[in-house]
């Protein structure tokens, strides 16, 4: 029986259980006569829900637990039935054999010759799976039915059904709210573990301070270019340069747009221009990447040639410029919020002293809004550092340590993508390096975010 069918059956059973519980509650009120409704502790719906929960939850729990343990248990049983000489194989060879058996059972292509004992094992595997599935179905359905009848038996006028149901619901709410913590832990653990494995091979100092990045790992020792270098400084420098260019584009344009829209523009212009600017933030980054690679990079290259400069076709300038465009609405909407939060009384005070509007803005509003703007800019920087698609499509792959924005540089995110896309083995420092870079990226953006959120929150409190 397929799992989705089982879930469907379980759902139907719960619906039936709900009806059973509800009718039971109603029949209790009827037995109590006219004052029936006051006899029950909770409304009949809650008795129905409680029965449904009793029907569904234990069964679902068993179902999930089985789904998690099943591969492990079945593999153990399978190994126990294999001939002793296969059982005696070392673990990795045994795993190969097991893989072959599983492939054989599901009718896939098998590596090597099919031996009769493998055939038998595959049959055994198929049987085991069929038995397991049947057993699971029987267990789940009978548990659901037992749960239903147990709950139905328990229904008395004194049963505090509502409290029980609410307790379950509250528990569900709490479980949902802890997702953020689990995700963070998951990110930290997954990145950290692989990174630590990487740092066992490559010393952390070499990674953080090395000046050469060429993530190759030799298959043979005498191979050409066998010496991989994992010094990440060129990668960090490239990230810094592209983000820097992006901020040079985004901060002036975004800030000036925000000032104009919130202080000068009339209502009509603002109503049109602001949503249009926000569209820039809604465009997927892959579109920006395509735009950068197709239009901006060749344009800058042509421009460089006419001026007589040698511009790489994957120049940092093109990637940074387009990334800056992407970040404009980010800076402008955050600055807009902050500028609007500056109390009108401060503006009025400055204007009353005879300052022009621009002087008011430059000398009163901006200094007052500065912490918030800085927080916004920091968030934008963290965004720029973590941005992937634009740089993957428009920036280079080779790590050059250069300060020339017309040359190709690479970034942390580009390296992560190139190292991890495609087939990979999980023991080579080459793939593990991606996780080390991911760790650096996560830590850097985390620090920026924490500072930015702190600054913004502190600032908001000041004027509220």
């Amino acid at each position, binding site marked *: 029986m397929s799992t989705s069918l089982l879930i469907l059956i379980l759902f139907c059973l719960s619906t039936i259980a709900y009806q059973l519980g509800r009718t039971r509650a109603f029949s209790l009120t009827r037995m109590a006569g006219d004052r029936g409704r006051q006899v029950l502790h909770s409304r009949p719906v809650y008795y129905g829900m409680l029965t449904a929960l009793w029907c569904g939850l234990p069964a679902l729990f068993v179902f999930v637990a089985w789904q998690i343990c099943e591969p492990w248990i079945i593999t153990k049983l399978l190994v126990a039935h294999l001939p002793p000489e296969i059982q005696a194989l070392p673990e990795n060879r045994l795993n190969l054999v097991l893989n072959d058996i599983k492939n054989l059972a599901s009718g896939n292509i098998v590596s090597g010759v099919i031996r009769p004992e493998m055939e038998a094992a595959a049959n055994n595997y198929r049987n085991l799976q069929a038995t397991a599935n049947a057993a699971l179905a029987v267990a789940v359905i009978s548990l659901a039915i037992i749960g239903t009848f147990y709950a139905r038996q328990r229904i008395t006028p004194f049963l505090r059904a509502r409290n029980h149901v609410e307790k379950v619901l509250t528990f569900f709410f709490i479980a949902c709210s802890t997702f953020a913590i689990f995700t963070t832990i998951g990110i930290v653990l997954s990145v950290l573990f692989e990174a630590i494995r990487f740092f066992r091979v490559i010393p952390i100092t070499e990674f953080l301070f090395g000046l050469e990045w060429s993530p190759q790992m030799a298959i043979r020792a005498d191979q050409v270019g066998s010496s991989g270098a994992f010094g990440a400084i060129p990668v960090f420098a490239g990230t810094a340069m592209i983000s820097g260019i992006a901020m040079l584009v985004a901060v002036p344009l975004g800030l000036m747009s925000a000032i104009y829209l919130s*202080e000068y523009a009339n209502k009509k212009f603002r109503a049109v221009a602001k949503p249009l600017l926000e569209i820039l933030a809604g465009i997927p980054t892959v579109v920006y990447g395509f735009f950068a690679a197709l239009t901006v990079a060749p344009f800058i290259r042509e421009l460089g040639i006419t001026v007589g400069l040698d511009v790489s076709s994957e120049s940092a300038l093109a990637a940074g410029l387009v990334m800056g465009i992407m970040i404009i609405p980010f800076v402008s909407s955050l600055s807009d919020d902050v500028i609007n939060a500056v109390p009108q009384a401060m503006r009025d005070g400055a204007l009353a002293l005879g300052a022009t509007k621009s002087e008011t803005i430059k000398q009163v509003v901006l200094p007052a809004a500065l912490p918030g703007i800085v927080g916004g800019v920091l968030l934008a920087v963290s965004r720029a550092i973590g941005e992937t698609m634009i740089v*993957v*499509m428009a920036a280079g792959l080779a790590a050059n340590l250069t300060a020339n924005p017309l040359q190709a540089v690479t970034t942390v995110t580009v390296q992560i993508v190139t190292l991890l896309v495609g087939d990979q083995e999980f023991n080579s420092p080459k793939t593990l390096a991606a996780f080390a870079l991911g760790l650096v990226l996560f830590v850097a953006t985390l620090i920026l975010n924490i500072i930015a959120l702190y600054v913004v929150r502190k600032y908001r409190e000041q004027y509220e």
Partner: protein
Amino acid sequence: MSNPNTEGPSETQIENSRAIDIVNMGLARRYSREQRFKLYGLIAVIISLSFLALLFFTIISNGHQAFFQTYLQLEVFFNPDFIDINNPANSNFPGLVKQTLSNEFPAVTGRREKKELYGLVSTGAAFQLQKLIRQQPDLVGKTVKIWVPTDDDVDMLMKGHIARDVPESDRRLSDKQLAWLDKWTLDAKIAKKFNRAFFTSGDSREPELAGILGALVGSILTLTLTLLLSFPTGVAAAVYLEEFAPRNRWVDLIEVNINNLAAVPSIVFGLLGLAVFINFFHLPRSAPIVGGLVLTLMTLPVIIIASRASLQSVPPSIREAALGVGASKMQMVLHHVLPLAMPGMLTGTIIGIARALGETAPLLMIGMVAFIVDIPTGFTAPATALPVQIFLWADSPERAFVERTSAAIIVLLVLLVVINSLAVILRNRFERRW
């Protein structure tokens, strides 16, 4: 200062007049500075918006042609020699196409010439004939006029992307091929028609056969899962944090975490998906189920933050009234607060889903970047997503893929506009201002 009665007033008068003079002298400069500052602001807005215009212009001017495709009309005689009616899959349909092309130009005899002639028609033509015979086996032995797709080079020539006046060696099409094409054009056998393949087929190495349906289905599967998982979880988490949670360090920790996750780079979520879902739980690679889980983790913070804002905007009087007539706290939330906050929550969810639709980087990490021709059939079948397809096509060298990439982007942007306007409509119609 020693004698303020005699000299004082006159001095202040002088100083006053000086001050006002200084102010007046500076006024013109200050006003022009004011004008300049205002102009800078306007220029910033105009530059930003012109970038937007340029982006749309580039995409649309490149992409609109991909919705039409060059087709060639062939008079195909379904020669029984080529077709095994019982086994269409094994029949020599490519041979049939070649035979038909040779009949068009009987003078072509040389091996190289023939190859050039055959190269004008897409390899998809043979599949098209095969499909036709499967549907209508009685066509065998008859002659039928059929429109088949041309090769992408021919398509590019017809759309003006291949220059005719350059030397033959610099051109993707030879002089002879051009001559044949001109003859067909004169006979009105070449025409541009609506490109149905673009919307009905999966990926292909041949630009003229490549379509977005596979990627679109992959995206829909992934986002369905994202929506199903993230909406209930996000709403439940928001309700707990906003309505039930005590103010303590644990809850503070959760809040800080949510705010941080909202700003973590998306590629880090991809790393999480790779390490946890694929390497630890051994879920299948390239599958929408993993994509859906990763995107769920990514969109949840957005949904929770929006839902909390929406819950906060429900006035306390509603809560007090519900509690006042004897509702339990849970009843108060579920029966009164939640329905009122629902439009705002839905809007936040839709915006989160729209963001997930455009997300590419985490999907690259979990292997949804493979070349997949089949239309995905389920949550565990290998699939790509629309933005990933755009990324893959953008990398392809053929000129014809440039316009296909742009066309796929147009489709993606249209979807985003539809989804976002749904959110706006929802907000305008149902959201209440208290």
